C-alpha cells in the first residue's frame, strides 16, 4: 500500500493528534445525541468508537466529517476546525457511511471512476487507482457488475476503496462491517491494519465487541456520553476488578436468577449456554457454585477466564441502561 497523499497529517512527525474532539455536543431539539465528548486520536492509529445503536457514535463521526454542525464544543481534524472549515476537512478525509453508500445502479468501475473524478483525480491517476482498488477489494473480473449485485463483503471493501481513492490521511468508517460474515469482517480488518501501518489514521465505529480488540484505543459510548476510554488491555484491566469465571450449567437462565441473590457475585451474564460470573475474589466462586447447585442445577465445569471487552461493556452498562462505574 503506497504512502497516503496527505502524509503531512498521517506521518508521525506531525505534531499534534490527527483528530481532537473537545466537549463535542449535538442536540436535536430536546434530545441530546452526543454529550460533551472529548478524545484525541494520534496519527496513524486505529481508534474505535464502541457502543450500542443509538449511543451517539454515528452522530459523533458525522460531526467530525463536517456533515453535522456541533451544537457546542469544538473539534479539529488534520488540524482544521470542523465547525469553521468543514469543506477543508472533507478534502482531507475519507468517509464510509453506514449504508456502504455506493450507487446501486452503477457498476463497480463506474462507482470508482465517479468518486475518483469527484475527488479530483486526473485521468491517469483514475486508471491506476481503479486497478488498485479492484485488486484490494478482490473484485478482479467483476468490474462490470452492478453494485447491488455484490454480496456484503465485496460491497464493503469496494466502499472502503472508493473512500480511499484520493489517499486521505484520515479515514472515518461508520459501522463498516455491519451485516457481513465473519470472514469478510476479518479480511476487512486486515485492510484496515494495512492502512494504519502505512500511516493512515483510522477512526472506526462498531458495535461488534470482538472487532474492538483490533483497535489501538477505544472509546465506549452510551447514551451520548463516553463511559470508558483507553486501549483494550487497559480497559479490561481497570474496569474489571476481580475475576471473571465461565461456568457451564444446565439452565443458564435459571442460573442467573439463582445467582442474583448472592452478594459476592458482582455480575452475571449469559453467553450462549454459559454463564460469565464476575467476582471480587477468586474464592467466591465456591459460593456461587453452591448457590447454583442448591437451586437444583447441575454444573459441568467452571474456569477463570481472561475478561473480554464484552464483559467490560456489560460491567459498565447494566441491564437497565444506566451507566455504572
Amino acid at each position, binding site marked *: 500500500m503506497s504512502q497516503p497523499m496527505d502524509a503531512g497529517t498521517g506521518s508521525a512527525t506531525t505534531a499534534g493528534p490527527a483528530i481532537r474532539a473537545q466537549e463535542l455536543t449535538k442536540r436535536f431539539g430536546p434530545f441530546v445525541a452526543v454529550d460533551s465528548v472529548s478524545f484525541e486520536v494520534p496519527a496513524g492509529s486505529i481508534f474505535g468508537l464502541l457502543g450500542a445503536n443509538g449511543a451517539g457514535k454515528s452522530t459523533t463521526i*458525522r460531526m467530525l466529517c463536517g*456533515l*453535522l454542525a456541533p451544537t457546542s464544543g469544538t473539534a479539529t481534524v488534520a488540524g482544521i476546525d470542523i465547525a469553521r472549515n468543514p469543506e477543508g476537512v*472533507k478534502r482531507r*478525509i475519507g468517509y464510509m457511511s453506514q449504508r456502504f453508500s455506493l*450507487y446501486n445502479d*452503477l457498476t463497480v468501475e463506474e462507482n470508482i471512476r465517479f468518486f475518483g*473524478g*469527484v475527488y479530483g483525480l486526473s485521468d491517469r491517476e483514475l486508471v491506476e487507482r481503479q486497478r488498485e482498488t479492484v485488486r484490494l477489494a478482490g473484485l478482479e473480473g467483476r468490474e462490470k457488475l452492478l453494485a447491488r449485485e455484490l454480496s456484503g463483503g465485496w460491497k464493503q471493501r469496494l466502499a472502503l476503496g472508493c473512500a480511499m481513492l484520493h489517499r486521505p490521511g484520515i479515514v472515518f468508517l461508520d459501522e463498516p462491517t455491519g451485516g457481513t460474515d465473519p470472514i469478510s469482517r476479518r479480511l476487512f480488518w486486515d485492510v484496515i491494519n494495512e492502512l494504519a501501518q502505512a500511516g493512515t489514521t483510522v477512526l472506526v465505529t462498531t458495535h461488534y465487541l470482538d472487532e474492538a480488540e483490533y483497535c489501538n484505543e477505544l472509546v465506549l459510548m452510551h447514551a451520548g456520553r463516553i463511559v470508558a476510554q483507553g486501549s483494550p488491555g487497559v480497559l479490561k484491566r481497570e474496569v474489571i476488578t476481580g475475576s471473571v469465571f465461565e461456568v457451564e450449567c444446565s439452565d443458564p437462565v435459571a442460573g442467573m436468577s439463582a445467582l442474583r441473590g448472592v452478594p459476592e457475585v458482582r455480575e452475571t451474564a449469559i453467553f450462549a449456554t454459559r454463564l460469565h460470573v464476575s467476582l471480587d475474589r477468586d474464592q467466591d466462586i465456591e459460593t456461587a457454585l453452591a448457590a447454583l447447585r442448591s437451586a437444583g442445577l447441575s454444573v459441568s465445569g467452571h474456569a477463570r477466564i481472561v475478561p473480554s471487552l464484552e464483559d467490560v461493556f456489560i460491567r459498565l452498562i447494566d441491564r437497565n441502561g444506566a451507566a455504572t462505574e
Partner: protein
Amino acid sequence: MRTIRFIIRKEFQQLRRDRRLLPLIFLSPVLQIALLGYAANMDVKDIPLAVCDQDHSVESRQLVTSFLESGSYVAAAYVPDAASAERSIEQGKSSLALVIPPEFGRSLTGRKAAPLQLLADGSDSQSAAIGLTYATLIVSRAQTAQAAARLLGLDPRVLSQIKAVQVDPAVRVLYNPTLASRNFMVPGVLALILMVITTILTSQAIVKEKELGTLEQLIVTPITPRQLIIGKLAPFVLISLVIITVVLFASLLLFGIAVRGSLLVLYALSLLFMLSSLGIGLFVSTVARTQQQAMMISMFFFMMPMIILSGFVFPIESMPPVIQAVTYIFPLRYYFVIIRGLFLKGVSFAELWRETAALAAIGIFVIAASVLRFRKRLE
C-alpha cells in the same frame, strides 16, 4: 469543470440503467400529444338537438331546416312531445331541444305571436350558452323574414317611411380563419406535456439520493452545490431538447400544425421554459425530505395549479386578482403566450420579449435558490 462532467456522466449512466424510464420519457410525450391533441377540441358545433315538431306545417319544417342547416346542430332525436324532449336531455342524449307547438304555423300566418320553445341542458353550460346564442340568431333571422313578409301587406306610403335597419358585421378572422380550436389547443397541449415531464424528472433528482443514502457520501466529497446542481440539470436539459424535437415533429405529422414563427426562436424559448420548469422541480427536490414529499409538493402545488390556472383553457383575465397574481410565478403562463404566438400568429421575438424576460427571471431565481438552499450538511 471536470467534476460537473463526472456528475453528468453518472446521471446518464443511472438513467440508462432504469429500463422503464428512458422509453417512458421519450415515447410518452408522443402518445400524449396524439391522444390529447385530438381531444382538446372546444369547437361548439354539431350540438345534439332533439327535434319536437308538433305542428308539421311548412313554417315549422322551414324552421327546423334552418336549425339543422346552420352547421351548429345535428339532429339527435325526433321526439313526439315536450316531456320526451326533457327526458332526452336528462339522459344526456341531447344538449338542446326545439319544441314547436301545434299552433306555430297557424299563428304565423294569422299574424299572431307564434310560441316557440327551446330547452337547454344547463349542466353543460358551455354548449347551452353557445347553443342558445346561435338559436337566438337563427330565430332572429326568422323574425326578420317574417316581419318583411308581413310588411308586404301594408300601405306603400307607410312602407316608404319604414327603415329596415340592417347592420351587418363583416368579420375578418386573423391567424386561424377556420376557427378550429385545435390550432390553439395543440400547442397548448404540447406545453402542458413538456411542463409535466420536466417537473417530474427533476423533482426526484436530489431527494432520491437523500432517501437512498448516497447523498451523504456525495456531500462528504469536495463537490460544491453549484457543481451538483448544474451536473444534475444538464442531462435533463439535453433530454428536453430531444423531447421538444420529438413533439414538434409529432404535431406536424399528426395535425399538420407547423410553426409560423422562427423555429430557432421556438427552440431557444422552449429551452428557456424547460430550464425554469426543471429548476422548479429541482428546487422542490432540495426542499423535500422524502421522494413522496417531493412528489406531493410538485404535483399539488405546481403541476395541477399550472395546468388549471396558466391559461390553457380557462382565461386568466376572468380570474380573481389574487389568483391572477399567483399565476405570475408560473412559467407555463408565459410559455403559452410564446408557443401560441409562434404557432398561430407567427410573431417574432420582438413581441415576446416580456415573456422571455419573465421566464429568464424565474429560471435564474429558482436555480439560484436551489444552489443556495442546498447545504452540504445532513440535517
